[in-house]
């Protein structure tokens, strides 16, 4: 398999993991919104309420930075990263 095909395969793998995490916190948990809201979440808010105010939103921020770092590692591994440090 060519270097490029391997790079793409890893990139696709990372996409799947990223989308899976995204799915859980944007769609999955809200299937059980009513049940989850009975539980007390962080800082004492009802759990579902907390996810809609802060939880899911914050997780998305972290997820994007994590994804960007992982993708950079993959690019470096195959020598496809760009020059420059910005």
């Amino acid at each position, binding site marked *: 398999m060519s270097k*490029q095909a391997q*790079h*793409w395969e890893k*990139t696709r793998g*990372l*996409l799947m993991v*990223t*989308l899976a995490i*995204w799915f859980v*916190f*944007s*769609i999955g948990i*809200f*299937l*059980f*919104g*009513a049940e989850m*809201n009975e539980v007390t979440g962080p*800082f*004492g*808010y*009802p759990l*579902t*309420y907390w*996810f*809609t*105010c*802060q939880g*899911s*939103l*914050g997780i*998305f*921020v972290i*997820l*994007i*930075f994590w*994804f*960007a770092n992982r*993708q*950079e590692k993959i*690019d470096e591994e195959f*020598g*496809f*990263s*760009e020059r*420059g440090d*910005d």
Partner: protein
Amino acid sequence: MIKGNFIDNLPKVYGIYTGGFLAFIIIMAIAEQMGMSAKAIGICFVAFTVAIYAIIGYLSRTAQADAYYVAGRQVPTVFNGMATAADWMSGASFVAMAGGIYFKGYGYMALLVGWTGGYVLVASLLAPYLRKFGCYTVPDFIGTRYGGNLARLLAVIVLTVASFTYVTAQINATGTIASVALDIPFQYAVYVGLVSILLCSMLGGMRGVTWTQVAQYIVLIIAYLLPVFWISNKIGAGFFPHFMLADEVSRIAELEAQFGFVKNSAENLKEVPKGLAGITKAHSAVNATPWAFISLALAMMMGTASLPHVMMRYFTTPSVKAARKSVGWSLFFIFLLYSSAPMLATLSKLALIDPTLPTGIIGKSVSEVQAIDWYQNWNQANLMFISDFNGNGTVELNEFFMGGKAVVLATPEIAGLPYVISGLVAAGGMAAAMSTADGLILAIANALSHDLYYKIIDPKAETAKRLVVARVLLVVIGFAGATIAAMEIQGILGSVIWAFDFAMSGLFFPLVLGVWWKRANREGAIAGMALGLISGAGYLIWVRSGGSGFLGITQLTFGIFGSAVSLVSMVVVSLITSEPNAATQKMVDEVRVPSGKSILGKQH
């Protein structure tokens, strides 16, 4: 003080700017103590900030195509994040979001999840690849990837339909704020707003818009956070509201149980001025079905990834790597405001309905409430209303009505903050609406000038002529938007949500599959865009004209239907027609690798 090139000095430049703005707020506060009138303070805030944006717009003027279309591709990640956040957070986010949460609770919070979750799709599916492509506009990608003028033209049409729906709402918002702050009639205020918007973008294109958007973000985030923290401290709810309002949230639930949600008769509701609503839904309880919540969130997420004014911000970063990181920063800066909106809604609601707080009006006598200064002000502005339906002389929960905008605009005054804060909030709302309007008008004008005029009509046009056309279109589109805004057809938020649905109906799958599915071809993309947009729009018209809809898809989520049609038709048509030629396949391979030259040259 400032040496060397502008980009290296950005932190310093915007540091000084932020300091200057804070100093301006303090000066205004002192002026208020010395007797400056509320009206004068409002005018100062709006005029001062708009003047600064206009100066930045003037200083960013340019005659080069790549500076005009993509800010010369040298905007650093963090600053591009701020600019995107301002681009993104519209008048609706700023003025109407907390109000939506206040009135509709959980069902509305789907928008918060959707408008943030969409960025994960932007970062992972699209932005880095479109940056590598090196396009100036979103249709530029469609036109080059799929080839042919028809695909390009369809992309321009979808983009224009979606963005234009959105931009009228933003011009409407600038008009509303300008008319309140400057005390002029709305029909004229709309054009005042428009001129301010054009001052930022006309001379410098994307470069001007970028640097004004960073400035606008700083104003809007200060204007949103300062009152939230101040109110929280003032009513003793906690010094860091985001982590400390659990007691307030449960207190609201307790009061809701105590008062009950009494349903008003249709006859009584006739008395209530148009646009005002009472509290009829639980604040923190789950009050929507899973599908209602998820379908709205999903539509907003896919719409986010298809809206061109957001996507084109990532064309301005220096590299593919920077584009990815920049999406993260964008969402971080958005998160700062979005996570504060529910807190503001909580504080506002508690301040108004808790009888044990001095500001609470529920349980007070009607005549007592009618004598309160802020009640009179906001009643006059048609944003607050009480009526004694049951004739017992006291205000009940179901007898108190408010406009959605009042949560952001009136809460500072209700909590007893000085007027300077209200002036600041007006400036923030103006910044939010202006920055989004600028991004949208530019997206439309650039697509028309670059893709329609230059790529399709006159490919030999010289740069100078292209940029004249771009600027003329900018003004024309601005005026068209303002004219429609002045007619006030749909409320601010309604049209915003439609824009997302239109964008996802026509563009989501043609964009995503263009990168992720090599087999996708021109015929498929054309079918996907055309049928997606037509079926989405058709569904909207059907539901609006009394149709029952199906699968719980409403006029707010019609994009789910449109994009499903788009996906199916794109895949089917691609598979029954021949695969893309070798050159196109090679192009897709190159897009998938960050290093190396972009597909389209620096000047194209």
